[in-house]
């Protein structure tokens, strides 16, 4: 894969934004590749982690934010544990997801941000996770209606799936917190 990157397309504001969110200096990455070597899901990614880091260094906003990679990342922190330059690739992935989600940028991995949205909606609604609603909504909105339905009877029989929604978690207070978080995030940038 080759890239022709004219100066006019290097978005240094994007790089600054990622550095501010992740709290680390992207320029320190010297492309050793340890992040990619240790990443358990790199085999399924469009761009492996070290290429994403390079993309951020070069201000390649569109390519990076519309990658499937940032959504496939499993947040396992292996990369950040091994990075010899303390650049925190896992933190950079978090920052990229936050930017991409806030701007509604599309990627080949739409199911993942969808799941994040549904999960948090469920927390906002119930204060705690309500698996039936969570999986139900996810299946419907992702178009895989019967996905994993065979798991449900097994889990129910073992007492691992609650039919009723959970109680607790100060739902009223949480709703306000969710709204406040949006304002706080906007303030930060």
């Amino acid at each position: 894969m080759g890239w022709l990157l004219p100066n006019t397309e290097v978005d240094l504001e994007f790089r600054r934004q990622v550095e501010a969110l992740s709290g680390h200096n992207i320029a320190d990455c010297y492309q050793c590749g340890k992040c990619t070597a240790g990443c358990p899901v790199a085999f399924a990614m469009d761009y492996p982690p070290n290429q994403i880091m390079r993309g951020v260094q070069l201000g390649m906003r569109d390519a990076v934010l519309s990658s499937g990679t940032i959504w496939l990342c499993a947040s396992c922190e292996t990369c950040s544990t091994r990075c010899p330059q303390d650049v925190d690739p896992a933190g950079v992935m978090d920052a990229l997801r936050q930017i991409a989600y806030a701007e509604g940028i599309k990627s080949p991995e739409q199911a993942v941000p969808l799941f994040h949205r549904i999960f948090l909606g469920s927390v906002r609604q119930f204060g705690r996770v309500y698996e039936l609603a969570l999986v139900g909504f996810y299946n419907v909105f992702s178009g895989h209606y019967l996905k994993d339905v065979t798991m449900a009877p097994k889990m129910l029989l073992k007492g691992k799936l609650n039919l009723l929604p959970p109680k607790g978690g100060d739902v009223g207070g949480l709703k306000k917190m969710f709204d406040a978080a949006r304002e706080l995030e906007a303030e930060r940038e």
Partner: protein
Amino acid sequence: MRYAYYPGCSLHASAKEYDISLRAVSERLGIELIEIDDWNCCGTVHATSIDRMLALGLAARNLSIAEASGLSLAIPCSGCYKNLRTAAEMLSEDASLRARINAGLETRSYQGSTTVKHPLYIILEDVGLDSISDLPRPLQGLKVAPYYGCVLTRPAAVPPVDDPEDPQGLDRLLEALGAEVVPYPAKTKCCGGAVLLSHQDVALDLTGELLKQARRAEADCVVVVCPMCQLALDGYQSKVERRLGERIDMPILYFTQLMGLALGIDERRLGFGRLVVSPAKVLARL
């Protein structure tokens, strides 16, 4: 010994046996776990992935509830543990960040003083392996593969509790309980739990690799500390078998369940019936 206790959402649902067995073991060891009142979901990877302020807010609310008790906060779920511990570390250092997060909490205010601990390390450090030397039912002859998962030891705690690449805490505990710990490479390699719903094939490949390694190492069971890992390895094991085209039949136990057995607690009080892959052959060995 008293600790504030944050079970997290899964210990009230898919990981009930972890809660049941942890409480039974704690009672036997003289540890009092006081579940904090009205706790909320920590947000897992979903909050940290898309809204940093929200993730910190969700954590701070729980930390402030524990703070009121003045006790350290015990958190058994690795995901919740990571979220609340990293939030506590960040918020204890950064007063201006703490002030902004508190602004979103309205009725509560976190002062930055809560210490977060995982029960495995509470047992290792606060109780000590010497205190559990008198075992009614040691795990003699049982070969175990301790599986730490990703986020128990990553990112490293401040101060670190275990090595992130080759942690030893669970190994030492299982040996102290009389088991034979078998070495295998993937002891901290991601099981894919975080992408179990969204990228099931990827997760099944990772989980499958782990299970094959445990089997190759001749483990009688895999011992876990995390509800997500347990769900992937146990609940989804039949799917892994279909994908690999071979039988695995590997029981996946919470460390508290095995510890409970070794301490002489009746197996019916340790939630073994809730495991999907039958632990019968493990129980028969002891």
